[in-house]
């Protein structure tokens, strides 16, 4: 499929949200302690590969959150997105300061977050557009990116308006500096390296040129 064809069938090119989540899940090892952000990241929990056990942390005070979509039916058993969840056998409840000690203290292995913008130096912007009339709200994002060992981002490759979200430098207010390791978009898996964005994989129907056109920074080709 060439670019012209791709563009006419734009909705068919690239991975679905579920495929992005599934691809991310493959990179989370057995035994990992994982925090999943709101939105597509939540889907990652559905795709833990056979034979792996992963423990989910929700920063409002639960280690051992049950499968996503499993609504425990209790208004006082919720996740960080304030959705009702369940707790697995072997779960633990704790207070906010203890919960963020896990985060800040580097005890969580992986955090998967959404993004507004990611820069080639690993900077992340995902909490505020910076618009003057916006109500600023940050939640736990800055703590997560400052503390968790590995930060993955799942995001559409471009905005709804078609603007690139992967940039040389973020233009929106930062969440954290140089903290993103890998980005899973609908079009590709991209590593953040010292040399910049390096393509690790491309979705079916996507070629390097197509990807580069939709990216606001120079991409390094796979295997380079």
């Amino acid at each position: 499929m060439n670019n012209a064809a791709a563009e006419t069938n734009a909705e068919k090119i690239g991975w679905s949200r579920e495929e992005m989540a599934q691809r991310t899940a493959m990179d989370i090892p057995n035994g990992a302690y994982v925090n999943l952000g709101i939105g597509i990241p939540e889907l990652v929990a559905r795709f833990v590969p056979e034979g792996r056990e992963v423990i989910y942390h929700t920063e409002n005070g639960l280690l051992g959150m049950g499968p996503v979509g499993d609504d425990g039916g209790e208004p006082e058993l919720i996740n960080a997105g304030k959705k009702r969840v369940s707790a697995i056998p072997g779960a633990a409840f704790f207070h906010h300061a203890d919960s963020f000690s896990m985060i800040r203290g580097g005890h969580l292995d992986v955090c998967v977050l959404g993004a507004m913008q990611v820069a080639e130096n690993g900077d992340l912007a995902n909490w505020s557009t910076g618009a003057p009339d916006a109500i600023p709200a940050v939640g736990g994002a800055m703590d997560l990116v400052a503390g968790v060992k590995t930060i993955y981002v799942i995001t559409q490759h471009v905005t709804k308006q078609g603007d690139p979200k992967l940039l040389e430098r973020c233009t929106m207010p930062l969440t954290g500096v140089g903290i993103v390791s890998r980005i899973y978009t609908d079009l590709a898996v991209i590593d953040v390296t010292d040399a910049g964005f390096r393509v690790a994989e491309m979705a079916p129907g996507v070629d390097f040129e197509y990807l580069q056109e939709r990216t606001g920074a120079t991409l390094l080709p796979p295997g380079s």
Partner: protein
Amino acid sequence: MIDKQIGSPAEAVREIFDGATVMIGGFGEAGSPIELIHALIDQGTRDLTVVNNNTGSGHVGLAALIENRQVRKMICSFPRTANSLVFPELYRAGEIELELVPQGTLAERIRAGGAGIPAFYTPSSVGTPLAEGKEVRQFDGQDYVMEYGLTADFSLIKCRQADRLGNLVYNKTARNFAPVMAMAGRRTIVQAREIVPVGAIDPECVVTPGIFVQGIVQVSDPLHESLLVAEGRSYP
């Protein structure tokens, strides 16, 4: 004999004064001491600085307290949620102040306040707009922001079980900020679903030891904020 029980929410909030700093437990509706907040609305205490992770939803609980113009300033991490209607409007109109703090820093500041730690360093927010104007210092070659401990004149929290000494246990993720707010409040007032005899709570499982609690009021069947919001209810 020590007995920290108080007869009613109205009585429990009586000492809260105009201009007080009040920590209010809860993450969204989970753990929100809604009857104590409504008692504070009835009392009409004004000019409050409120510490809570959010700003309430709909027109009940914390949102109603804000709507009733009793809150001068909010210290929180996430002032907007799906049903957060009141705060954004007042904030845009310049009628309420906001101190925005990353959630983990907020929790740690409250714990520090309760633990007699006046200030500490954290990596959270380094290099972001929320670190602007704050002291940044290097340890082992890494930058950290200095943050201050936070205390309050009063803390209002909710728990599952309490005894007359003030020992508390919570319900699931409703625990959230309550244990650290209990530490940081000069007077901590608790609404408990159940008051049990001394000795009924396993000493190994006490989450908040009684030393951090000054008053307990039983609210056996608390209102559910989300239900009230869904019904479009408002308070008063």
